C-alpha cells in the first residue's frame, strides 16, 4: 500500500509540470471484484413543447384581455388575468423568456450569422406587437408579468406634469437603442441584465438586483407602472404600433357619447387619457405652420448631429464588449499582467493568443460599434425631434378618450365611467 502510494506520488510529481488540460495520466483501472462503474446522469433541459404551451397561454390571455377591454368592458376580468399572468408567467415560468428580452434575440439573429433564433422566441416577439396593431396594448394590460406586478401595486398614484412625462418618455427609446446596439455587437443582453423584477419572480438573484426591484415596486405604489412608462424598451415599440390599432379600449361604450364628467381621469393612474381640446383657442395657424416647418427642417439636422455624436461615442460604448475591454485593459495597464487576481487577464495570457490578435478582434468589434453608434445617434435624434414635433400637432380631440399609444388597456377607466 505504502509503496504504491509513493509510486503514485512520484508519478504525480513527475506529471505536475504538465499543462492543466486534461490528459489521461493514469490508466483505466481494471476491477477484480466485479465492481461496475456508475454512469453519470445527464439530465436534459425541458424540451421546446413547454414553450409552445406558454405561447398558447399568451395568445389566450391577450385575446381574453382584448375581449374584456373592448367588447365586454369588464375591468375585473382584466384584473384576474393580470394576477394569473403574474403567477403563471412570473412565478411559475420565472419570467423568462419574455417579449421584452426577445428584442435582443431578434437583433442577434439579424446580426450574427451563427445564431439561429428558435421559433418560439420569434413568436414571443411578434405576437404582442401584432395584437397591439389590432387591439391596442393588451399585452401590457394583463399578459406581461413585469407590468402585472407593477399594476397590482398601484396605491396612491401622483400626477406627473405632462412635460415631465414626455421628457422621461424619451428614455425607453434610449434604452431600446442601447439594447439593440449591444445585442447586435454580441456584447451583452442589457435588458435581461437590468430587469428589476426577474429577481423577485425567481426568488433569488444578485442582491442589488432584488433591491432595485423592491425599490421599483415601492416607487410603483406612488408612481404607477414606473418601468412600463419610463424604461421598458418593448413598450416603446408597442407605443408606436398601438397608435395604429384597429380597435382599442374606449372609456365610454362605443355607441354612447362622452358626458365630460372627467371621472375617468381620476381613475386612470397612468395619465393616459387625453383631454378634449376643441374648445381651446387654436393657435395661430400661420405661426404654428412656421414652427412646424422649422421643426421639419431641424429634424434632419438633429438626426445628423445625433449620428455624429453617436459615432464619437463608439469608443466608450464599445467597452461594454468583453474582447474590447480586455484588449484596452492590457494596453492601458500592462502592469496588470503580473496581477494574479485579475482572472480575465490571466486567462487571456494563458490562452496563448497574442495581443495583436486580440486587438484585431477588438478593432472589428469596435468598427461594428462605430456603425451601430451612428445609427443609434440618428435614431435618437429622430426620436427627440419627432417627440418635440409631436407637441405641435393638434389632433382635435372632442372628448375624453384613451391615448392609444400610452393606454395599457387595464380597464380602470371603464369602471369609473358612468355612461351606459
Amino acid at each position, binding site marked *: 500500500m505504502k509503496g504504491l502510494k509513493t509510486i503514485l506520488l512520484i508519478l*504525480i510529481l513527475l506529471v505536475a509540470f504538465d499543462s492543466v488540460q486534461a490528459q489521461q495520466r493514469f490508466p483505466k483501472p481494471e476491477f477484480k471484484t466485479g465492481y461496475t*462503474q456508475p454512469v453519470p446522469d445527464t*439530465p436534459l433541459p425541458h424540451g421546446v413543447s413547454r414553450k409552445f404551451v406558454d405561447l398558447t397561454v399568451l395568445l389566450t390571455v391577450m385575446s381574453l384581455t382584448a375581449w374584456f377591454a373592448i367588447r365586454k368592458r369588464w375591468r375585473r376580468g382584466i384584473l384576474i388575468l393580470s394576477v394569473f399572468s403574474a403567477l403563471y408567467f412570473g412565478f411559475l415560468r420565472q419570467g423568462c423568456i419574455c417579449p421584452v428580452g426577445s428584442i435582443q434575440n431578434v437583433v442577434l439573429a439579424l446580426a450574427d450569422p451563427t445564431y439561429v433564433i428558435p421559433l418560439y422566441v420569434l413568436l414571443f416577439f411578434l405576437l404582442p406587437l401584432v395584437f397591439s396593431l389590432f387591439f391596442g396594448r393588451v399585452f401590457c394590460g394583463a399578459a406581461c408579468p413585469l407590468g402585472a406586478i407593477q399594476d397590482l401595486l398601484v396605491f396612491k398614484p401622483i400626477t406627473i406634469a405632462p412635460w415631465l412625462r414626455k421628457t422621461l418618455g424619451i428614455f425607453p427609446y434610449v434604452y431600446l437603442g442601447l439594447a439593440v446596439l449591444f445585442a447586435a455587437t454580441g456584447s451583452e443582453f442589457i435588458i435581461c441584465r437590468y430587469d428589476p423584477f426577474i429577481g423577485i419572480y425567481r426568488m433569488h438573484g444578485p442582491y442589488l438586483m432584488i433591491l432595485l426591484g423592491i425599490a421599483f415596486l415601492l416607487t410603483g405604489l406612488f408612481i404607477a407602472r414606473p418601468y412600463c412608462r419610463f424604461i421598458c424598451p418593448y413598450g416603446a415599440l408597442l407605443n408606436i404600433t398601438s397608435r395604429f390599432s384597429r380597435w382599442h379600449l374606449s372609456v365610454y361604450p362605443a355607441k354612447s357619447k362622452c358626458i365630460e364628467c372627467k371621472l375617468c381621469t381620476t381613475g386612470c393612474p397612468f395619465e393616459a387619457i387625453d383631454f378634449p381640446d376643441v374648445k381651446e383657442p387654436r393657435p395661430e395657424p400661420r405661426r404654428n405652420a412656421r414652427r412646424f416647418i422649422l421643426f421639419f427642417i431641424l429634424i434632419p439636422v438633429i438626426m445628423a448631429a445625433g449620428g455624429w455624436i453617436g459615432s464619437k461615442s463608439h469608443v466608450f460604448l464599445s467597452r461594454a464588449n468583453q474582447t474590447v475591454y480586455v484588449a484596452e485593459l492590457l494596453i492601458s495597464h500592462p502592469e496588470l499582467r503580473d496581477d494574479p487576481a485579475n482572472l480575465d487577464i490571466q486567462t487571456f495570457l494563458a490562452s496563448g493568443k497574442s495581443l495583436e490578435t486580440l486587438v484585431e478582434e477588438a478593432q472589428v468589434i469596435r468598427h461594428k460599434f462605430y456603425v451601430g453608434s451612428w445609427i443609434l445617434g440618428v435614431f435618437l435624434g429622430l426620436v427627440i425631434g419627432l417627440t418635440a414635433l409631436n407637441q405641435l400637432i393638434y389632433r382635435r380631440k372632442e372628448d375624453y378618450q384613451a391615448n392609444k399609444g400610452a393606454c395599457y388597456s387595464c380597464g380602470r377607466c371603464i369602471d369609473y365611467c358612468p355612461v351606459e
Partner: protein
Amino acid sequence: MNRKNFINRSGRWLLFGGLAYLAGRIIYRQKVSPSGKYSWQIDPYKCTQCGRCATECVRGLSAVKCVHAYQLCGYCDLCGGYFKPNTHSLNTGAENQLCPTGALKRKFIEEPFFEYTIDEELCNGCGKCVKGCSSFGNGSLQLQIRHKLCENCNECSIARVCPSDAITRVPVEAASQIKGDFIKPVTPAPK
C-alpha cells in the same frame, strides 16, 4: 374622419408589413429553428476553473455542479481532485480535502482503487476539485450546468463573465454532455 381612418389603416399595414418583412427575412435565411431550443453548456476543455460559476449564477446555490466522468477516472488513492496538495495521510479528514463543502465523497472499492462521487446537494460549483483533477489527474471531474436546476436565462450570467468563453448556447439535445463522449468540443453557438 376619413383621413384619420386612412392614416390609421395605412400606418397599421405599414407596420404589419414591416414586422412581416423582419420575420420573413429571418426565416428566409433559415435562421429560425422551429423545434429548436437553446440551453447553456460549459465546454470543459475551455473551462479554467476560475470559480465564477459558484458566485455568478442567479440562483442562490449555483446550477453549476461538479460532474464525474467515471469512465475517465483513474480511481487513484491519491486523488488530485480530492486531496489538497502535500497531503500526507490519505484519509477523509477535513484538513486534507480540497472541497470546501464536503461534496466530493471517497469510497474504497478494492485495492488500490477508490471511487469518488459528488453529492450534488452540497456542491457549490467552485471548481477546486476540477482544477486539482485536471492538473494532477485524468481530468475526469468537470463542471457542468445541471439542467434540472438551471433557469435557462436568455443570457447566462456566468457566461457573461466567463474569462475563457467556455459557456455557450447549445441545442437542447446536446446539452448535457460529459467528458468521455465529449471528445471534441461541441461546435458552440455564439453567446
